[in-house]
């Protein structure tokens, strides 16, 4: 395997893995729900993105042709992930979940 491609693939994998982990760390350790909401919706998208990039590179190189199927995963995820975040945020606001005291602004009544 070409060293450069292998490097790129490996790097993409690591980037993806790290961001996936970071997102989940955020989910695990941030103090209130609204903050935790940021972890996955951000980092995980890039986490998946990284692995997808790796996959793209890997298979394109492997097959000696552009393999873009995985882009669809990213596309769908970009379409759907904000919706779940949005809905969960609404749910949290409806339940009037505790937020950190120093949070500025107010959530809306649902």
């Amino acid at each position: 395997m070409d060293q450069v491609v292998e490097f790129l693939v490996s790097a993409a994998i690591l980037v993806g893995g790290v961001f996936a982990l970071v997102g989940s760390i955020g989910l695990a350790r941030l103090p209130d729900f609204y903050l935790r909401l940021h972890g996955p919706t951000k980092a995980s998208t890039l986490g998946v993105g990284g692995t997808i990039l790796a996959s793209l590179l890997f298979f394109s190189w492997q097959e000696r042709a552009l393999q873009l199927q995985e882009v669809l995963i990213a596309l769908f995820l970009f379409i759907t992930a904000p919706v779940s975040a949005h809905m969960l945020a609404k749910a949290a606001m409806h339940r009037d979940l505790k937020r950190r005291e120093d949070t500025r602004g107010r959530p809306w009544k649902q």
Partner: protein
Amino acid sequence: MNLAILVLLPFLGAALPPLAERLRAPRTALALSAALMPALALALLIGPAGQVFEGRTVQDALSWMPSLGLTLAFRLDGLALLFALLVLGIGLLVILYARYYLSANEKAGRFYAFLLLFMGAMLGVVTSDNLLLLVLFWELTSLSSFLLIGFWSHQSAARKGARMALTVTGMGGLALLAGVLLIGQVVGSYSLDQALASGDLIRASRLYPLILVLVLLGIFTKSAQFPFHFWLPHAMAAPTPVSAYLHSATMVKAGVFLLARFYPMLAGTDLWFDLVTLAGMATLLWGAAAALFQHDLKGLLAYSTISHLGLITLLFGLNTELAAVAAVFHIINHATFKASLFMAAGIIDHETGTRDMRRINGLWKYMPYTAVLAMVASAAMAGVPLLNGFLSKEMFFAETLQSSRLGAMSWVLPLGATLGGVFSVAYSARFIHDVFFNGEPVNLPKFPPHEPPRYMKVPVEILVALCVAVGVLPAITVSGLLAVAGSATLGGELPEYHLSIWHGFNVPLLMSVVALVGGVAVYSLRRWLYTQYDRLPAINANLIFEGRVQALARAATALGNTLRNGSLQSYAAWLLALVALVLLVHLSPAAIDGTRGLLPLDGVALLAGAMLVVAALITAVLHRHRMTAIMSVSVVGLVVSLTFVRLSAPDLALTQLSVEVVTVLLLMLAMYFLPVRTRMESGVLRVSRDLLLSVVIGGGVGLMAFAMMTSDFQTISGYFLDNAKPGGGGTNVVNVILVDFRGFDTFGEITVLGIAAMGIYALLRDLDLLSARSDSVGRPWARDAHPLVLVTISRPLLPLALLISVYIFLRGHNLPGGGFIAGLITSVALLLQYVASGVEWVHRRMPGDYHPVVAVGLLLAGVTGLGSWFFGHPFLTSTFDHVHWPLVGEFELASAMLFDTGVFLTVVGATLLMLANLGKLSLLDDKKGGA
């Protein structure tokens, strides 16, 4: 002459009276219609009777169920002839009697029908030449007597009496059946002929005691022998013609008939002697003594019947030929005098309106003619000389003297016999004196009584005339019949005996005298005896029996409720405990062969497995927090999908994932109507029981899984891998199996899905459910029903998802995918529209009834399968071809695709039918709330 027809006639005749009744025939015509067939039968009997008197046995057989050994075989020998004559003759008299006995507003047609049924059954019993056929008719007599006894079904006593008789005799019948089957086993045939000839074989058999006990159980219950006698007095609740018939010549005589019939087969052993004699003696005494204390006219007769049956039984038990002949003789005599007595009692009941002897007195004045008849009959019953009862009783006394089986105790038999005679005389005296003399009637319901209609007396007259005729001229009247009957009973030559009134001064005569004198003496002491008797605690067999039965039924209900306690938890525990038992007993670690190499375990798998374990445990532990449990179950589902990915099952992973989503939607829909939390309600004991079951079953299944995975095996799967492409035209073997190799499974499976959807639709229709008005933390629901972002995103997602469905569908045959998964994706996309925009919005845009979609899907799959018929192939044979389209290139067309389309449509239709209708539920609720 066909004996089968003879037996059949009464059964056929049973149809006539109801028919006549329907035609509104007058009572006499009704009676005539009933009498027609028995009369015909009697007439038909004349021919074969002649042959019998010539010493031949008339036999006749039709095949019925030869595999069972059940044939319609009939025989007419002397014994059968005797009984046939009694059954038919007395039966006819009873019909005549009943014509006058039954009042105009009673369902006489039905009565006669029952009576004729009974007559036919009885005739069958006595003429059967096949043991099974005999049992069949035997049980029929029980059944038809049940109907007869319960004829006045509005009376509680009649119902209870009928049930008691049926229960007791039914039990006996079952025992008899068992006995007969054993006889058949020993003899190797159910032919009565052969069985009679195999007496020695049977008696020598290891099974003999059992056979004897079983058969005797049948006999004793039927002929009311102690201790099974108690049903008989209560059968008196029947109309009197029935009593006259059942308890003189027929029903109870069936028992003693069988004693006679089986005499050559079973008699002659000490066991026979002990059992039969003992029962007979006990019955004789008990019945005779009890008869004296009855105030009910029919009650007295009932107990006297019991006593006389005991006498006959005792005679058969003595194991001597002469005694058997005497028994047969007494059967005849008892039939005549007892039938006439019952009829007389019926007349008295009919004319006075009561049967209580404490009120019926001095009837001589009012109905002297009847009185004479009754007195003659009673005298016969008491064994007064010049009447038939005397002759047989004499023989009885004589035979009791002969027996030496009891050794030094042999004197007990004649003593008992004499004692029985004493009581017999006493109650006969009571019947005469109390009823016809003894002062004036007391407070009769009908007063003054007078003679009954002319023809009501005819049957009594005939019977009484017979009593006298036999008593005076036995040699002329009865000896011929008795001879053939006796020899048939013994199955051989008759012993020497003389039927004459005078045998000279001998011990039996002395016993008769003692009986007469003693009887009169006892009767004169009656008042003292009654007061003594009244001090005894009253025993009402009816109440006791009914009480027992009720207690039994209650116990049965209680036992039933204990086992079937209405608790699903306990039912499921039984089921699972059974499984646990199977595993505990049969599963051992030795099942692990370990012939197959293990796959390496990597960290990812380990951690994923750990996740699954944790999630499953969370679900179990936290199941009371329902939402949490749903989520942890989702995690389990996710890990299972990933496991499928890891273990080379892409199709399964896809299916599992999409099913997972639909399931969550389903659960969330349901949660709207279900409580959010489960209460803690299982006790420690139950929880530990359940834990034990889970550990055993879970562990067992896991162990089996491990054993299976670690051992090699031979499988047919190579065939699928080899033939998927050449035979099924696809490279995705799983899919080819689903739509081709095992397409029938899939056909069934989508049917299941379709049915489930239908069933769910049916369940949801007009379901009243209260939805939660606020969420689990008590907050009112949010206002925003259709969030903008969700709505807007759901729009483009629909065509996109459909595109993916098409993609997944088309590639299914060659790569992971197929109709199921495509269908589920489409369903989810459509459901998303429901979730985002609501039912009404969606249904404005597409038809909301998914029944046709399911139907079309199923039909498509089915019709595709049928298509192969036209090419001469079986259902679901697939065909495929590669078509070359210009521009497009190679394109594969397979009939399996069409089948898969059916699958697709069914999945979409069924899923939406389920969930959309579930979603509509709240709509109903809202409307209700708004109204």
